[in-house]
């Protein structure tokens, strides 16, 4: 007995986008936890001072920080130069007032936007904003890194990091800005997960699973 498929499958997220999405999610989670710990250490010190509690947590923060930095750069590159233009196509909606109105109305349960690409206009703008926040938190992180580690990469970054530090009004301000930006990610993550789940339910398509499998499904007409 043959089974007829009721839906068509469409690849919306390339493997690179999916891998980077989850690596980024992992590094953000690790960075938020280790970052808050560094800001206010609370674990009781071990018996021996050979165990560098703060040192190991800082090490994890630095490692995930470099992962996030690398992904941020690669994702900027992929947005512009990926062979798949499904992300870039969304820009059409961003430039259209009509798309904006339709999309915003759909969030309050009125109608549905047939998107040009994969993202709605508000979603697109939010992702652009969070990408720049990521860029800024990576830059401030690298400035702090260069002020702690003076050899190798830290040494190479020293001059430019000193200049950025001066523009930001000193090392203390760099650290404060780095801390503030953390909250943008926390609040973004909560809204992001909700919107992903909600839009899947509301607009009856594959949403959360897409970033794992890469596919969305459309009913045949």
């Amino acid at each position, binding site marked *: 007995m043959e089974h007829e498929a009721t839906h068509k499958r469409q690849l919306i997220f390339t493997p690179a986008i999916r891998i980077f999405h989850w690596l980024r999610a992992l590094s953000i989670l690790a960075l938020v936890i280790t970052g808050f710990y560094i800001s206010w*250490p609370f674990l009781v010190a071990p018996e021996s001072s050979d165990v560098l509690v703060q040192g190991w947590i800082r090490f994890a923060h630095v490692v995930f920080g470099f992962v996030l930095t690398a992904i941020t750069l690669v994702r900027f590159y992929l947005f512009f130069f990926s062979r798949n233009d499904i992300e870039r196509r969304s820009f059409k909606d961003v430039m259209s007032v009509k798309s904006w109105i339709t999309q915003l109305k759909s969030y309050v349960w009125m109608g549905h936007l047939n998107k040009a690409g994969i993202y709605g206009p508000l979603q697109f703008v939010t992702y652009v904003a969070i990408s720049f926040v990521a860029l800024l938190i990576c830059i401030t992180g690298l400035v702090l890194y260069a002020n702690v580690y003076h050899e190798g990469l830290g040494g190479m970054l020293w001059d430019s990091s000193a*200049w950025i530090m001066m523009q930001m009004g*000193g*090392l*203390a301000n760099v650290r*404060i800005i780095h801390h503030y930006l953390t*909250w943008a990610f926390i609040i973004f993550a909560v809204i992001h997960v909700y919107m992903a789940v909600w839009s899947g339910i509301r*607009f009856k398509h594959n949403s959360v699973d897409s970033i794992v499998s890469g596919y969305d499904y459309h009913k045949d007409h």
Partner: protein
Amino acid sequence: MDNHAALYEQGKQRLEYLRQFAPRQKVSLQQKMEESGITRRDFMKWTGAVSAMLALPLPFSTLVAEAAEIADRVPLIWLHMAECTGCSESLIRTDTPNLDTLIFDHISLEYHETLMAAAGWQAEENLENALETYKGRYLLAVEGAVPTANNGAYLTVGCKGHTGLHTITAAAENAAAIISVGTCAAFGGVQAAAPNPTGAKGVQEVIDKPVINLGGCPPSEKNIVGTLMYFIMFGKLPALDIFNRPKWAYGARVHDNCERRGRFDAGEFVETFGDQGAKDGYCLYKVGCKGPYTYNNCPTERFNAHTSWPVLAGHGCMGCSEPNFWDDMADFEKPLGRQLFHGIDATADTIGAVVLGATAVGIGAHAVASLFAKPLED
């Protein structure tokens, strides 16, 4: 000729040049040392220490010795702007005069409002004479910020009624080099802290010339005398960091040379002042130490003839050699992550948590409303 040999040659020529001027002191440094009970051996040790501090190899100690002897050929004009005289105090107040204070005594100090005997017309005349006689040759040290609000009407003192802004502008015009002594002169200090009613600024912001900034509230006597010695020896500015502070003094983070750094990396922190951790010399990060954001040589040079420094005494560094530290480093007894936003008295984390809570409420409301919304038609 390698770099050090070339620098040594430069120093020799500079001292040769200085020797042509008449000494301004009747008593030689050697005699002064004898009177104060400082031996030749002490002096040689001091020259070695100064060379090392300036990151110069040991042979330069002979240059340091020579420069110290002829320090009275270098005219120094010391101006007081909006300040507390703590920087001068740091240098001159001592129970036993050591070589640093002696050098300051020996240098040809032409004008210093705290130390001079002259007053009124005589004082003004001294300043004007010095500015004219040593044109292009004098070293200008400034203590205190320059108030610029109300057209700089502040600090209008003396018989001629010049404003502070006028005095500093006139004195800076023909100075061979300008040293901002202390955080006020370098970056504005407490006068420039918000809301800065007098429009106080660091000297470098009102003078269109390179200024050496000696951050610190006060800077240690070592950093002041070391900078003077460098100028006497070489007649030019030392290598400076991005905030124009000499690299030999402000090149390393307080945190990196701190004797409690091992405690930090091991995660051993003082929780409150007076707890067992405090008694055991644990790290002061959680009670507000700003050593991680501060560049200075306090942990290695210390204060008061190497006696102590804040962290050794049990209080965290408050970052006094950094620009705008009164605002940026507050609260001094809390880490930066617990800094309060002015006006709402809440930390970034409290605000973040409140925004996060509001987001959760909004999401909850939207989710509940979605249950009752008319489903999308197929």
